[in-house]
């Protein structure tokens, strides 16, 4: 067991964990931040994406101990200070970018990382970037649309095509 300390969504937390505890398990079980999901065991689905020191990371492929001292952001910390949805979250709702919601936290976290590096991505760039995020429900169409809208680009209104 080792002590890890990290800042999660702006709050410092310290816990004793086993060396082999994955960051995804640490967030879900030790901190009960269950918005981070686990959809696979081969690091491919992206349901578990969080931010570690500002970078999108698949939390199922990182040990909690490796995040010692890091700034970690999860879906629970994304809303605006007043609790309203942030621009990306709001765009996902406005453009029906989610159905069952299981892939959604990872999608939102990936989208945020994309837009940080590339504030006005093209459709092709978005589709390419989402290589590591699988959604089985939406066919991605409205996810791509939501990300474009979140970046301030014009997209057709929902249900009006």
């Amino acid at each position: 067991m080792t002590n890890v300390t990290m800042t999660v969504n702006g709050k410092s937390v310290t816990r004793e964990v086993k060396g082999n505890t994955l960051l995804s398990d640490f967030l879900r079980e030790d901190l009960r931040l269950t918005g981070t999901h686990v959809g696979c065991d081969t690091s491919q689905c992206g349901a578990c994406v969080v931010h570690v020191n500002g970078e999108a990371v698949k939390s199922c492929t990182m040990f909690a101990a490796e995040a010692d001292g890091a700034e970690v952001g999860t879906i629970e910390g994304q809303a605006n200070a007043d609790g309203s949805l942030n621009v990306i979250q709001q765009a996902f709702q406005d453009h029906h970018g989610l159905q069952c919601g299981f892939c959604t936290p990872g999608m939102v976290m990936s989208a945020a990382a994309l837009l940080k590096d590339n504030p006005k991505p093209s459709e092709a760039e978005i589709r390419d970037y989402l290589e590591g995020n699988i959604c089985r429900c939406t066919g991605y169409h409205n996810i791509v649309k939501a990300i474009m809208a979140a970046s301030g680009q014009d997209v057709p209104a929902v249900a009006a095509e």
Partner: protein
Amino acid sequence: MPKDHGIGASPKRREDVRFLTGAGNYTDDINVHGQAYVHFLRSDLAHGKINSIDTSAAEGMPGVVKIFTGADFEGVGGLPCGWQVTDKNGEPMKEPAHPVLAQGKVRHVGDPYAAVVADTLEEARNAAEAIVADIEELDPVVDMAAALEAGATKVHDDLSDNLCYDWQFGTDTETTDAAFAKAAHVTKLELVNQRLVANPMEPRVAVGDYSRAGDEHTLYTTSQNPHVIRLLMGAFVLGIPEHKLRVVAPDVGGGFGTKIFHYAEEAFCTFAAKACNRPVKWTSTRSEAFMSDCHGRDHVTTIELALDADNNFLAVRTDTKANMGAYLSTFASSVPTWLHGTLMAGNYKTPAVQVNVKAVFTNTVPVDAYRGAGRPEATFQLERVIDKAARELGVDPIALRRQNFITQFPYATPVAVEYDTGDYEATMAKMEELMDIPGFAARRAESEKNGKLRGLGVNCFIEACGIAPSNLVGQLGARAGLYDAATVRVNATGSISVMVGAHSHGQGHETVFPQVVAEMLGIDESMIDIVHGDTSKIPFGMGTYGSRSLAVCGSAMVRATEKIINKAKKIAGHLLEASESDIELKDGQFTVAGTDKSVAWGDVTLAAYVPHNYPLEDIEPGLEETAFYDPANFTYPAGAYACEVEVDPDTGAVSIEKFVSADDFGNVVNPMIVEGQVHGGIAQGIGQALLENCAYDENGQLLSASYMDYAMPRADDLPHMANYVVDHSCQTPCTHNPLGVKGCGEAGAIGSPPTVVNAVIDALHSGGHTHVSHIDMPVSPSRVWAAINGQ
């Protein structure tokens, strides 16, 4: 101007806020105080005889609570099949036992034969390593044709062979043969509808809990139909009466059919929670999901189409082998029969249609319903053979379809169903308009300039949704009724909880259902909440699958709301001292017709619960009504789809350049949700057409057991926004349900695979590769390249 509320509007989904902020409550998010964890030992052989399982070394290991093997389940029932198919000789299908944990033999890779319950998952896994199982390898049967050969190894020793049933349906043989005999042209095609894995992104989870105080069981599970699980597991597997068993399916991360079925892990956790006197939790890994979630499709078919000299369809005859896997899953037997054979007429007035299906046991994961369930298989055969016929005859595939369309409704098909309504010409014309068919030649020329072959594929389909009339399916062998139920509970201040049997695992019921009730009552949608997914809260409904939620459960909700309105009018009449027949309800106000005397919705609801001035001699206080709704018929959504692909002749790579769907779903309550359902269905259909394949090797080893090997569609596999239109403007309302709705959940997955394959074949022919008449799905680069090169 689109409506901004009620039926036909697209309000933002209310469930989104919790999903977007990490506040969803999925089954794996539930931890019950004191819970232990189970790890299943699963067979790594396709077929084996269990000689012994020695658990002694594991028993005393740290954290171990209890170890279970098949012997622990000898006193309980096996997992039941919910549909008995009768074969062509009048014999019932063969129904092998399906124990919770394997007894005597393991029959597929992933078959669970032991389970360790421990304080932590890690301890359960460690102890599992110390269990010594002596399992003797037996020859597996993997291929369906081999499984049916005389003398083949038997999957189940107590059955005479591996044939589950040999089923024949539709037009009799003499009439069918006569139609073929007089045909001017017969087109024949052999094809495979490959095995798929549904892959909802949320893996299955089960948490069993038991309270000794009340002898009560609770199961939290990832299910599309908690009441079905309560009935099947309670009555048939564990012998727990329904009132002692609560099944909760909270937020569920996608289903697509594979979360309909009752699974061994659910029964295990429920059983073990009592045996261990501790809650027991199981969370599937994705690797486990690949070898334990029921698979889909896996049909091998020969289809023949007979045409007369004027290209009118005379007859269709099919011969299909359908893989059941090693055991019969909950609805497995119905998929290749009643959900497939009944659709073989398609959109066409073919007078003779005969369907033959042999269902086969093999040493593979059980196969059951996956999005579309039988209907994609039917559509794929029919629309591929029509396309091939058009090519052989040198006629336009659109014209050939059009010429043979059913145009009069109702229409009784030769395969037992009656289409109540439809307009196939309308969806075809809409598709042609949106696709810009006249512009195709120029687009093809442009592709050719870039060294690519461009193909246009079209497809028409019909599906039977809104499952299903209970008396009809009962005659066909269903062991369940397929009605649904809703309770509308109006509270004293006028807010409403609607408890529904349907389950939402992405479909947006929490948003859509209130639109209907709000429209009927003329009150704000925000006053209405939907309650679903907990058998202790909802009436006995059958859940969500077969695009049935709105058509069946929504109809129950309409009926219950009508009862509410009738009673509320009585109360309003009393309050207004007028006859109830003079009371009108509009915009949440009850008015005496022709006067300005009115009371508000909230006045009436308050009077119902505070009945000081109330007709107590005539009606009871309170305002709560339940309705069960059993549909009179299936619903028959239909559509015309088209796509354009580019094929790179050097690599065989296929890309979707343009895609149009023109669907007729009848009335649409929420266009945004409908379009989302179609997008998702089409993505799964394109996935089947181009990418996905659940593969076994000849030893029954599952080759595609992770996302490394099973190609899920990614964002860049699908058409871009500018070249992708999903349309539902053609609407012929269903004639027999109160909303006139047909269901939209499966259309995309049914309509798209043949569209894509037809387009690929068209592309290859344009490049002179006219020897290629078919490529099996997935139409991968290597298969296309091999086809082009005659290999």
